[in-house]
């Protein structure tokens, strides 16, 4: 991991989640459900892992004026999108942390500090975190309230499955779905909604996202 994958800074945080201000162009926006990390900024703080649960693009006062114009030139449109006064805001759900080289699927002991940097996870980091333990972090995803948990799970499993498959972990997806079923089988309606979302993501149980026709 290099600093080039850093994409924003923490605006606010608590034990469960944080809000991140995004400062670079939209091609670098980490997609919904992708895994991010907030590295150690001081000795007492562990490196926190999270999932992007929401991406919010808010308007500034100038956009309202542009929107009323009949025609907006390409240059103006690009300028308004890239050189924004108000940052793109991402909501990050914490799913675990790394402390002294040990992964934990518990919530972090303390929230990250404001203006801490936030980074996208590499495949190796995704594989290491999602392979650890017995999918304990999925319980945090299933309790998310700001988006449908099925949608978030489908996005996460899709990303993680690709990383696991690249690392030759072929049974991971099946195990992850089994864990979801185990945790949710008391709730028939929600489980079917989650599995429906996973099904719509066309995730191959071999770990690859299937080609859309």
């Amino acid at each position: 991991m290099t600093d080039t994958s850093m994409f924003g800074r923490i605006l606010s945080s608590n034990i469960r989640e944080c809000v991140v201000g995004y400062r670079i162009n939209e091609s670098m926006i980490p997609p919904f459900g992708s895994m991010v990390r907030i590295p150690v900024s001081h000795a007492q703080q562990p490196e926190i892992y999270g999932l992007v649960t929401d991406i919010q693009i808010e308007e500034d006062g100038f956009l309202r004026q542009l929107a009323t114009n009949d025609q907006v030139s390409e240059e103006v449109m690009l300028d308004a999108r890239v050189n924004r006064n108000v940052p793109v805001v991402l909501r990050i759900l914490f799913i675990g942390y790394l402390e002294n080289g040990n992964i934990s699927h518990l919530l972090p002991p303390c929230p990250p500090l404001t203006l801490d940097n936030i980074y996208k996870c590499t495949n190796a980091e995704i594989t290491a975190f999602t392979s650890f333990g017995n999918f304990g972090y999925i319980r945090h995803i299933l309790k998310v309230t700001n988006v449908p948990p099925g949608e978030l799970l489908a996005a996460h499993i899709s990303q993680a499955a690709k990383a696991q498959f690249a690392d030759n972990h072929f049974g991971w997806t099946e195990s992850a779905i089994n864990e979801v079923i185990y945790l949710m089988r008391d709730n028939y309606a929600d489980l079917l909604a989650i599995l429906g979302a996973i099904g719509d993501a066309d995730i191959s149980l071999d770990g690859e996202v299937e080609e859309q026709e």
Partner: protein
Amino acid sequence: MTPAENIGFVIGGSLKEGLFVRLTVPAERIQEGAFVVIESNGLKFYGLVVNLSLKSYDPRYSQDLITGRMSDKITTLLHNQTLFTEMEVLPVLMQNTGPELGDPNYDPNAIVDRSPIPVKTLPIHQAPVRLATEFDVSEVFKPKEKNGFVIGTTREQGHPVHIDMDKLIQRSSGIFGATGTGKSYLTRMILAGLIQSKQAAVLVFDMHNEYAYGDISPDTDIKAPGLCEKMKKRVKSCALGASAKIAGNQPDFDLVLEYSDILPSDIEMLTRELNLRETTPATLSALVQSFGLNKWFESFKNLTMGEGEGSIIDWARNNNVNEAAALGLYNKLERLFRLNYLVPKLAGPSSIVKIIDYLKNGYSVILSFGEYETDLDYLLVTNILTRKIREEWERMTNEYRNQGGVKPTPLVIALEEAHKLLNREMAGQTTFSTIAREMRKYFVTLLIIDQRPSQIYDEVMSQLGTRISGWLGDDEDIAAVLSGLSGRDSLRGMLARLQPKEEVLLLGYGVPMPIPIRSRRYDAQFWQEILSEDELSETDRQKFREMVFDDF
């Protein structure tokens, strides 16, 4: 030895209701009646699968057909966790296995009684359940004293199941099954095992002439050999009637009865068969009083019709007997007077004595009824013969116990169509019910072979130790076979759902626990295994090589 695969785990249950097990393998791999083992805290529990139920975590998982709404793989994963089979196990035996080697509590000097005993406690929750291995089956069923006879194999994995021949002959036993279920072949195999084990002499009342020299299998049209053909050194054939033959074969000797063998009680036993009246006992009593116990039958036969001296009417008047009753009885007994196997006096030694002598000396005898196939013949001859045997064995036993003589040879009387002699009306009159109830202590037991066990008197059925039953269709027959046994409600369905051929349920005293098995085949291989090498002549060996009668 590789550890057996677990098929599920205990999720609940009680001693009364049995154990509930959640299957972790597909339901189709387990059958009702499967022999399973549960290991828990140094105890092994042996049980039978008595029911399988389809269950779901939530009813909607089974009621909603979601196939097509998501991928087959995800559907499979969902079904694997939400739909399952619950298995009911009837725990029957438990065995103390003690701590395993490596366990801190393991004591190499500790003496652990490993004999299986009736179940008295339960395994813990989530104890693993597996199908019994060959070792488990052997632990439970193989007698320690080498008196076991392999009667068949477990249905799932084909592990041999033994029956304890010692126990089989200690109490009366029964072989039941609807017609065509292979009773007579099974009986032949058990008798062969019994004769081979030298545990007892056997007297077979062979009503249909199939045990001595065999018969043609109705299913395969191939000849199945008889016991006399294969075990001629130990089995004697006897045919009813002078110079009679058994299916074209010359018997070792024939059975002819003397008039003096017939007692009034033998006639009373034939009340229904001869349609006798209520006055018969009084008339018979008067006959015995007039002519004596040994001469009454012959003397009565020699009375004449009409009214003169030596006539029936004359005798009746002189003995205060109702004339019509005496004439009526005479007419009814004419069926007996005409029987060729009844003679006034035998020229040589009594055939009955010969049979008894053979049996006393450990030989087995198969009495074939040849052309005398009516119920009258069967009832009369079996009752007379058994009465004499009973008297002799009682005498020998009393002598043995009081004077320290030779212990009588244990005797098993195999009785086909047993309901004819042991039905509610007849049971009190024949010797057979007495044998079933009391003769165990005199070393005589019955082996009842029947297709209608419900017709056999309850008191006799309750005395049966070992019961071996093939498929039965009638509820009353099923109830009769299971009468007096614990867990009969669980076993009822098992008995009703046996395969019509080759599958039998073993129950009762001769087996440590009930178990459905696939019975051994009565074929060349059976005889090869049953006959010890020293008894196999070169001719026999040649015959085995040539014989092909595999599919009975």
